[in-house]
């Protein structure tokens, strides 16, 4: 049976030692966020996740959701756990105090999210979607809609969904057909079919608020003609409680590879009453304003699953005795623990370096999100927003690819047992797979990076990453102790510079060239970002390493990353510079 313990020490390292907490505490309303205030939140979350959510993970996977007569039943124990989750205030963590929230910065909430994803990703989907609906309404809803609905979303009493995809319209939302007709009283009648709607129907809450993309009658074609509507499952009665049933119903649920305890619904809107959120025809841009947060949220799913898979792989590798490791016996047993085998160590260290590195990069990104939303100086907000815009596609694709690779590696460490359900390792692989696909496939993330984030404002977003990174390299140029970390970082950085300039140059002449190199470029970018994280981690850890095993492990992991993972940037660079000819020239008919 797998186990999970929240990695509190490493989270503290990522937050307090690796990140600019002074900048965090300088934000309005954050001045009392000392470790003494934050630690109890993280500890309580760790306990709740390990004791309440983690035990439901395997049973939820086995049982799955059940669809009967238009009603979705979540697995056994989910409704109770959800109630406890709300009672614990976990839905309100990052929400606006004006509506009952606790106003915790994203950089801290992110770590709680990681614990939820590690312990039970399917469960986490429900409050996650509720938070998405909260964010959309909070940012774009009228005051009336906000007053009516936000307190219910913050308390978790009501849940939410994001209804975007339709059978013919996935990545390309310009193709949606769902219509919204004005009724004349300020509301609209929404008609159409949405698919792949997470949490579209379930038995956890008394009401579900659907945020639906639909087209107004006179809307322009394509993405400029899409509006956003709020369609509640039950229309609120005058006393604020769920009233009449709205004309929206779940038609079926999907049978999926993973996250089986999360309901994925076909939703039919049949003239359902809805209200416009934001401006007409500006629905997609309203969605975009929340996208960075949503994409970082999915990235954390990859991180959470990688972490739990790593923990269990390590536990197994310590216990499992097989063969003699090259170079002599480890202990007196009949065989050595497989932990002693170089290739197993390679697997474990790869998982560790990636997970710990991503954790820091995630906190850095979330911290910039906090600055972008809370800082009083518009110039600082802008800079932080640039950084978040740039890093969001990198983080989403890098973390979720890493989640898939790490969970597969974790399964590999267990050998045949990894393939057996009761060990739990194969569930992580199945659950992790979706994160590479939804909230914009990782291919789309790469296109976003090279097609948009790289070029807007003549590359200004890039400055927020390239300049501080170069400043870090230059600041440590003469530092002999750090040279083994900073030199590989500098090399990766110059590769990234070269590929950035080259892709930008080629992309100007021929956009297909930039697109052809996009995925490799995103990976190169991500690995360089993690190299920065690890060089900085080495800088922080080195002084304490002689006396403290935690820091010794940090330095050793940093060394592993520089020597065994970062060299991939060389291969990626070669592939990028080779251009897109080999993709273009292959004849369509020959596929």
């Amino acid at each position, binding site marked *: 049976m797998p186990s999970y313990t929240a990695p509190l020490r490493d989270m503290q390292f990522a937050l307090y030692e690796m990140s600019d907490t002074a900048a965090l505490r300088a934000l309005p309303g954050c001045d009392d966020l000392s470790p003494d205030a934050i630690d109890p939140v993280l500890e309580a979350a760790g306990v709740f996740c390990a004791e309440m959510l983690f035990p439901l993970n395997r049973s939820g996977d086995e049982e799955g959701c059940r669809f009967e007569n238009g009603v979705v039943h979540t697995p056994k124990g989910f409704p109770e756990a959800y109630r406890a989750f709300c009672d614990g205030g976990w839905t309100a963590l990052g929400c606006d105090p004006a509506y009952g929230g606790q106003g915790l910065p994203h950089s801290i909430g992110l770590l709680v999210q990681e614990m939820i994803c590690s312990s039970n990703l399917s469960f986490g989907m429900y409050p996650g979607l509720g938070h998405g609906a909260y964010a959309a309404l909070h940012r774009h809803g009228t005051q009336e809609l906000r007053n009516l609905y936000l307190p219910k979303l913050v308390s978790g009493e009501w849940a939410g969904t994001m209804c975007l995809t339709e059978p013919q319209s996935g990545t390309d939302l310009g193709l949606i057909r769902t219509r919204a007709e004005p009724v004349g009283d300020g509301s609209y009648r929404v008609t159409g079919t949405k698919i792949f709607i997470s949490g579209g129907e379930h038995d956890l809450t008394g009401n579900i608020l659907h945020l639906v993309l639909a087209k107004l009658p006179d809307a322009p074609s394509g993405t400029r*003609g899409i509006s956003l509507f709020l369609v509640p499952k039950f229309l609120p009665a005058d006393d604020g409680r769920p009233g009449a049933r709205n004309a929206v119903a779940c038609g079926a649920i999907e049978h999926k590879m993973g996250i089986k305890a999360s309901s994925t619904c076909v939703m039919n809107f049949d003239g359902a009453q809805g209200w416009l959120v934001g401006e007409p025809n500006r629905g997609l841009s309203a969605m975009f304003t929340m996208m960075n947060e949503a994409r970082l949220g999915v990235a954390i799913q990859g991180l959470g699953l990688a972490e739990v898979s790593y923990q269990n792989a390590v536990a197994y590798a310590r216990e499992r005795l097989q063969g003699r490791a090259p170079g002599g016996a480890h202990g007196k047993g009949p065989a050595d623990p497989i932990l002693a085998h170089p290739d197993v160590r390679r697997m474990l260290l790869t998982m560790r370096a990636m997970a710990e590195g991503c954790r820091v990069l995630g906190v850095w990104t979330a911290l910039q999100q906090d600055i972008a939303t809370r800082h009083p100086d518009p110039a600082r907000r802008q800079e932080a927003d640039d950084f978040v815009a740039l890093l969001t596609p990198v983080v989403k694709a890098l973390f979720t690819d890493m989640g898939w690779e790490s969970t597969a590696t974790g399964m590999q460490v267990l050998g045949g047992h990894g393939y057996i359900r009761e060990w739990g390792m194969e569930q992580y692989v199945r659950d992790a797979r979706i994160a590479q696909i939804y909230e914009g496939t990782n291919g789309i993330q790469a296109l976003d990076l090279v097609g948009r984030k790289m070029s807007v404002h*003549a*590359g*200004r977003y890039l*400055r927020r990453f390239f300049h501080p990174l170069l400043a870090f390299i230059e600041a440590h140029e003469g530092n002999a102790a750090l040279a083994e970390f900073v030199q590989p970082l500098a090399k990766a950085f110059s590769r990234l510079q070269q590929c950035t300039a080259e892709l930008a140059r080629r992309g100007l002449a021929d956009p297909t060239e930039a697109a052809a190199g996009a995925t490799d470029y995103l990976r190169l970018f991500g690995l360089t970002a993690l190299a920065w994280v690890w060089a900085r981690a080495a800088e922080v850890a080195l002084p304490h390493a002689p006396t403290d095993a935690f820091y010794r492990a940090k330095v050793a992991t940093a060394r592993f990353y520089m020597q065994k993972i970062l060299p991939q940037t060389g291969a990626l660079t070669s592939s990028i510079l080779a251009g897109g000819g080999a993709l273009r020239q292959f004849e369509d008919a020959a596929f």
Partner: protein
Amino acid sequence: MIRRVGVIGAGVMGAGIAAHVANAGVPVVLLDIVPGAASRAVETMLKAEPAPFMHPRRARLVEAGDLDADIGKLADCDWIIEAIIERPDAKRALYARLEAVRQDGSIVSSNTSTIPLAALTGGLPARFAADFLVTHFFNPPRYMRLLEVVAGATTRPEAAAAIRDFADHALGKTVIDCADSPGFIANRIGTLWIAAAIRHAVDLSLTVEEADAVAGRPFGVPSTGIFGLMDLVGIDITPHVAHSLFVSLPPGDAYRDVYRDEPIITRLIAEGRTGRKAKGGFYSMRRKGDGREKLSLDLVTGEYRSRRKPALDSLDAHGSDLRALAEHPDRGGRYARAVLLDTLSYAASLVPAIAGTVDAVDTAMRLGYAWKWGPFELIDRVGAAWLAEALRAAGRPVPGLLARVGGRKFYRLHDGKLQAFAPDGEYRDVARPEGVLLLEDIKRDGKPLARNASASLWDIGDGVACLEFHTKSNAFDPLVMAMLGRAVALGTEGRIRALVVHNEGRNFSVGANLGLALFAANIAAWGEIEGLVEAGQKAFRAVRAAPFPVVGAPSGMALGAGCELLLHCDAVQAHAETYMGLVEAGVGLIPAWGGCASLLARFAADKRAPKGPMPPVARAFEMIATAQVSKSAAEAQEMGLLRANDGITANRDRLLADAKARALALVEGYAPPEPVTLRLPGPAGRAALALAVQGFVGSGRATPHDVVVSDRLAETLTGGATDPIDATPLDRIYDLERHAFMALLRQPATLARIEHMLETGKPLRN
């Protein structure tokens, strides 16, 4: 010979014409019927933007007076231009008075925009009819290059020839001979186009933004479109022009059907919302918070609302293909089609009635209305056969000329020469005035000596080559530098005798490609950028050191690197409308392609300047730190950006020929300039300049980043750590300016300035 000119009527046109005559260095008498009006008009013009005078001193050539008191001053004028109210009786009465004072052989012309010549000479003596013609200037007279000339049957050919010659050579106008018909060429077609564009926008329920986006760029019309143009010229003018045309247009003219009094326009005029002069028309502004909100008029309600980006599928799909746009079924497509059919069929129906050739019509529309393509060029773009078919499909007549051209084009190339379809069904060479040398003709005729994606080298005859940039806005990039190097190599090998640097773009060059530079800076590619700076310095210094003469021939803006290259040339032959300046400080940088070094060297060599190391430094410092740009070639000469012996050409079409002649004149006995050394003030000078800048900070005229930029500039111009008793080689200044440039480029405030300039076209004052 036109030695002295009289202008009667000191309204916008008359005063502007007088100013422009003064710009040509010719004394002019400006009279108005209202006492004092003429001298007030001169005062107003001295403050106006864009400036009617090329240099304030030109105003001294204008003698203002009152018509009744000073009509005698017209006695010794060679050309008297009447620009009074558009009433034939008033004009004829004035002409009768002129007959009493003007000298024999003097010429009289009217600047009427709509009245036929025949209606103006009635009842006047034969002497007057022989000396009279119509010269129709466009507003503003200094800047609009078109002059429509109508010579009547009785006009002396020598009189018309004298005016054409003066307008061409001295005033720099492109003279188009028009038939004596109402509205002549440009206004005849232009007013129909405006009427059609307004009418169809209303009928098809387009917003003003949509109409301007469809009828603007895809048609090659300035991005103001129709409604923006109406705001610019004044909405109240439309009904006046319309009713004046109604009087004189032939019965059955299409304008009578297309023009409609629009209730929305009537209402705007009644409410005084007549355009920019009235702070609002179809577009307006409103205070919002700290900034201003851009508003647009709702054509149905007549109220303002926030400006919206047009959202039309047709425009998204076919913004650069007019024919496909006009075939699109949405409102935008139908609008494009309606405006296109009305305008182009009208133009086709008017040749030869209003002008002998289609190229005269096209030139008039390009120069008079700033269209990128004239109507017949537009027809060639959409296809004459397509247009004829579209007219037939709409049940409309196909003009004879359009039917005759059939499936062919109005323009073709024949033996390397441009030919136009003439009304008689033959193709004839497009005529150029004597002495005009156009790069576009040379390019049509042959292959370049060398070419890359950013620049080309053309043989313009007599061993002279012309280097042309053809990047966006003619910005400098590494390939332009490479082509400069190639030209120097060809000259060094003796394969060319002289080089002219010239192009026919709207601007000579707006400077370096800032987008490329900013991107490279954003990814911290400092080594690469410094390499580019070095390569540019090397290329420009090679131009100066080349063993053959190099002549710059700029027109329009020559900013930043464009100006720096001109400073490295042996001579410059500039179009009168040349706007030069080292504007790098505006984007938080200093000139680093030898701009600092060259300007310093030039000012140090100025014999008239005060002695000592500081005066040339202070002069260059002030010019660069405040990013001064000349408002004309004449002003550039006074600023020292052009030398006293650099030439100025009034007519853009004659610029290349003049530059080539100047280059050839330098070939005999040419030796490149000697290396220069300077005595510079060093750190003490830098401190003095810093003190001066502090004064500007105190008075609020310098921003914090101005101080940073100025200090780097001061360090460069004062020679860094040099001592005034040492001679500093000019090469040292090139190194200093490069280092300063690289240091400034790392500053976030500089990057913010560059980005702001790229995105808004305006400097950021941070």
